[in-house]
């Protein structure tokens, strides 16, 4: 089909796209003691370029204290057949400020601020705060908001039009959902899945383990009637699903299989629609806690992110406290097979230094190339949580590494020629978080 909208006709077409040559990565000063705004880095990922593996542009936000975190495009493959749309604007929310920064990437190497949707306006008009996940929805945009205007759960979903005007609340009802976090939709099955972190007032100040027992953190996954915009089924995961974070459906729009990483339980949860049309779930991976010489209890992995390759064959996730990234073959999604593992940083001291840089923090956010061969990894989770588990990150900063992935038989290897040391940033050590590419990536696009 000839078409000139954004993205790709299918996941298979996306995999044939040219190699990513630029990366956009969040870097933060919030919580570091450096009184500078958080910023969006452009990183040179073209191995033929003289500035390969360097930050080549920094776009500072207008003020301090946003805590930039995740981000998303104004348009993706969900409006591939709409020639009036283009993947040009990156929506970069601040979790603490609730500001939405709309960044224009018409010059891909030097993005510029287009406009700011002020947190105060969002709170006043929708009673929402703490933006997290951004997904485009055809030509419009929805953003999971983790709190109400006072930072209490469950929050809801902010709906923006294509010009970034506030439409209002997207959802018709939050039902009995106690918390929000990540979401992903699979429109051919009229389903959206959402997960649960905690109220902003709970997670923003830092992590108190005791609050898990007091039910201040999530342990459920919710399936929504996407067209009716209301929840229709809840999987109560219990102890197997403490703090379920990133939610990913298969990229194949016909598939019903989806996955979520339960951070504190360090499990991977899988769900699917069975032959009778009922949604089922199961735990498919359980990362064992590891002993630590100075801890009274073994260290949980803390699965801070998961990601699925564009061909739906491999699942990747990070154990932020252990310090490893794992690759599983999920061609049989009920029976994943561990095919690769690399170590960087972490609390278990397996790889304190990589490519000449002392890794402070652990593998955290990951982004995979469309062809599945290069995985970019950053080390910071969230400023207050970083300060609790990896206090040296204040002086060392974060770093970005690249992992080469074998897409035939599986396997991973840290690339020896790529490292971005955010400890050496011009304004002082910063911390790096989510990464996206100008042409779309393995967590940005949904096919309708």
């Amino acid at each position: 089909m000839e078409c000139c909208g954004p993205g790709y006709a299918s996941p298979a077409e996306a995999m044939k796209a040219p190699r990513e040559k630029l990366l956009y990565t969040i870097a933060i000063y919030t919580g570091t003691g450096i009184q500078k705004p958080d910023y969006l880095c452009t990183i040179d990922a073209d191995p033929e370029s003289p500035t390969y593996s360097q930050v080549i542009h920094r776009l500072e936000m207008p003020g301090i204290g946003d805590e930039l975190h995740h981000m998303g495009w104004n348009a993706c493959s969900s409006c591939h057949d709409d020639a009036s749309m283009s993947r040009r604007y990156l929506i970069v929310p601040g979790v603490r400020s609730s500001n939405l920064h709309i960044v224009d990437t018409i010059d891909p190497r030097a993005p510029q601020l287009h406009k700011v949707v002020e947190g105060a306006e969002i709170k006043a008009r929708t009673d929402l705060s703490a933006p997290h996940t951004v997904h485009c929805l055809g030509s419009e945009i929805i953003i999971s908001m983790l709190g109400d205007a006072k930072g209490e759960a469950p929050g809801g979903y902010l709906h923006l039009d294509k010009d970034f005007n506030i439409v209002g609340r997207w959802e018709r009802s939050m039902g009995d959902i106690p918390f929000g976090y990540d979401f992903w939709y699979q429109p051919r099955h009229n389903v959206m899945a959402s997960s649960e972190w905690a109220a902003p007032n709970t997670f923003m100040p830092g992590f108190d383990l005791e609050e898990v027992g007091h039910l201040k953190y999530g342990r459920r996954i919710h399936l929504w009637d996407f067209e009716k915009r209301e929840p229709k089924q809840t999987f109560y995961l219990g102890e197997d699903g403490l703090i379920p974070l990133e939610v990913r459906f298969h990229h194949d729009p016909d598939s019903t299989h989806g996955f979520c990483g339960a951070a504190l339980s360090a499990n991977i949860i899988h769900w699917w629609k069975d032959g009778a049309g009922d949604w089922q779930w199961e735990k498919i991976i359980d990362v064992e806690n590891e002993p630590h010489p100075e801890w009274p209890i073994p260290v949980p992995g803390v699965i801070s992110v998961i990601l699925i390759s564009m061909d739906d064959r491999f699942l990747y996730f990070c154990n932020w406290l252990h310090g490893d990234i794992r690759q599983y073959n999920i061609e049989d999604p009920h029976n994943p097979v561990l095919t690769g593992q690399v170590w960087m940083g972490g609390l278990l001291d397996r790889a304190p230094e990589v490519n000449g840089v002392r890794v402070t923090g652990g593998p955290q956010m990951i982004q995979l190339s469309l062809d599945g061969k290069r995985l970019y990894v950053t080390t910071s989770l969230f400023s207050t949580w970083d300060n609790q588990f990896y206090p040296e990150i204040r002086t060392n900063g974060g770093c970005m590494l690249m992992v080469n992935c074998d897409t035939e038989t599986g396997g991973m290897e840290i690339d020896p020629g790529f490292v971005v040391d955010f400890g050496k940033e011009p304004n002082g050590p910063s911390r790096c978080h989510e990464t996206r590419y100008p042409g779309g990536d393995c967590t940005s696009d949904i096919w309708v």
Partner: protein
Amino acid sequence: MTSRTITLANRGGATYSVDARRPLLDTLREQGVDLPYGCKYGGCITCAARLTDGQIDQRRQVALNNRQIANGYIILCVARPLTDCTLEIGVDSHGKLYRNPFADPLEPHELKADIATPKEA
């Protein structure tokens, strides 16, 4: 206007006269004190400072647990001075604010106010 004198112990003892009815984050920043902040409603801890002398009203804060409060932490974006106060500001005052939650658990009375249980005698 009722004024209070705020002394910043870790900024060479600099003093500022502030409106007692307004949050310290606003009144100090307006006088050029460079302070960190985030949510500006008392929920996120980024602007925490340590009160070493004096009394404040921070009833709107929801970020601190009782151990942090016992260690003198206050949330500047909602804290109003009831008396003259001495503060330590910025992340150099945050030494006891953050702790590894697994290695150093909280006692039941040290949790946040809404879930804490009274300390047993």
